[in-house]
């Protein structure tokens, strides 16, 4: 079987939904952050597939930008999570809800 565009899109939609479910349901900041990266990966899969099947390189270019930006975001994000962990000794979202009225 030769994979068609639809196969890639179904894979991408699945990965996006798994990521979204992870963000909504998990309670550890690290896992939430991994799920968010998974959602970006879904876009990367779909973009690469669209580029391949539409014979246009624009999508591939955007893929590189997404990878770069995601790396920058992870660098800052993990720094914040580590600083939070050092202070509270936890990265569980239920235990760091201090901002309430």
């Amino acid at each position: 079987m030769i994979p068609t565009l639809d196969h890639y899109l179904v894979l991408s939609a699945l990965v996006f939904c798994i990521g979204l479910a992870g963000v909504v349901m998990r309670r550890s900041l690290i896992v939430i952050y991994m799920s968010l990266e998974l959602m970006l990966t879904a876009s990367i899969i779909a973009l690469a597939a669209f580029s391949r099947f539409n014979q246009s390189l624009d999508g591939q270019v955007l893929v590189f930008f997404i990878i770069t930006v995601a790396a920058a975001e992870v660098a800052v994000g993990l720094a914040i999570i580590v600083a939070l962990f050092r202070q509270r000794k936890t990265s569980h979202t239920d235990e760091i809800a201090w901002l309430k009225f």
Partner: protein
Amino acid sequence: MNTVATTLFLQKSQEPMQWWNLPEVWWIFVGILLLLLEMLRPRRNSASIAKASIFAFAVMLIASLGWPTGLETTFFGGAYQWDGLAIFFKRIFLIAGLATTWMMRKCEAQGIQGRDEFYILPWFAVAAMGFVSSVGDFVTGFVSIELLTVCSYIMVAFYRSDRFSLEAGAKYLVIGALSTAFLVFGITILFGTGGSLRFDQLANSLASGHQDPAVTMGVVLVLVGVGFKLAAAPFHWWAPDVYHGAPTPVSAFLAVASKAAAVVFLLRLLIGPFAPLWTQCQQVLLALAGASLLVGNLGALSQRDVKRVMGYSSVSHAGFILLGISAGSQPAMLSVCYYLLAYTLATLLVFGVICGMIDKTGGSLMRQFNGLAQSRPGVAWLMTIGMLSLAGIPPLSGFFGKWFIFASVWQEGMYVMVFLAGFTAVASLFYYLAIVRHMFFEKPADGRAISSGLSFGYQLLLVVLAVATVAVGLVPGAVQRAIYALIFNL
């Protein structure tokens, strides 16, 4: 003034602009220069960097008077558009950057730990927003929005020893990344159906295939991503927490600049690729506007902390702005720009007062502002001007902002929305006036008067913002004509 500006940005409109003359190039250059200065400076003392940063913002604001208006060009193969809309928003960003850096300086003078990056990051954030205001394709849009977001993460979580700041940073991080994921997935779907990432080409291809459900899905996902940045309900729940926990100048920056960047991105999308899909977009925008008006104004009523009130207030103002945008006419666009100007000035004023007073009151709870009018009447009056303008009391600019938006929405025949907005605007009086009541009519809890004063420079900043808030309201017609001339190139 203009000669300074012309020497800074060599050209006037007869000469074609060059990419190295674009303001963002200069802003990023200033940011890098400040980073180098910080490295070379012998003692660890941020005062010099702070002063240099504020001075540079002032210079750039003056230089912005010399920008060529009445000229529409594109750069980098259409990825960057230079026009009146971009100029208007770039000036708003500069004002916000200047006021924010000034407030940051004040925060540090209050003994809260500050490091030089605090004054340098706004430069990259402002440059990113400048690119957003000129965006001409989705690659530029995505990268510049992300630059803004990553800078905001760092600024929100900047007080690393403060538990609230860190928690706000973590929340903003998750929300920011989530909105990015939605935005990128929407862009991906639009690329797949439209075959391009350029706004003009996308508009052409979407015009022919706008019945496709995939297109609708892509548009909705992009609007959800923008809705998060705009703090529009139902994507607003991060705003009160983050505004509360973040350092006060950063809250001001998020409330004003980050929101304005989302607004201009939305406008660019609506006049660009989403123009063929206007009816679908309008429904989504109206739903967001109605929800934001209700949630923002009713949610603020039960709050006891001024910064949280400002968080909900920013949600409600996002509602008013979205309402104006969804009217979709030319006067509506003007009224949105006027509203944003009034909102910017008043919000910066309110956050400026909070930032100046927070070490004297010991916090930003409403009762900690009790009796401010007796000990510091000037400051209390400045705060009152800001609050009344946000509430929309007649002689102030906030009133005319709301008035123009209501008028343009009424013209489009959306009477129910006008009544809803009017009702929530009346409700908003309660929480804005509650703060005024605490300042003027309540006795301080522990009988302690708030004594020590603000520096002359900081008072000057607050007074200038207050005068601008009043002045923009005194001559609303003239201001609107000026915006009209700028945006529609007359």
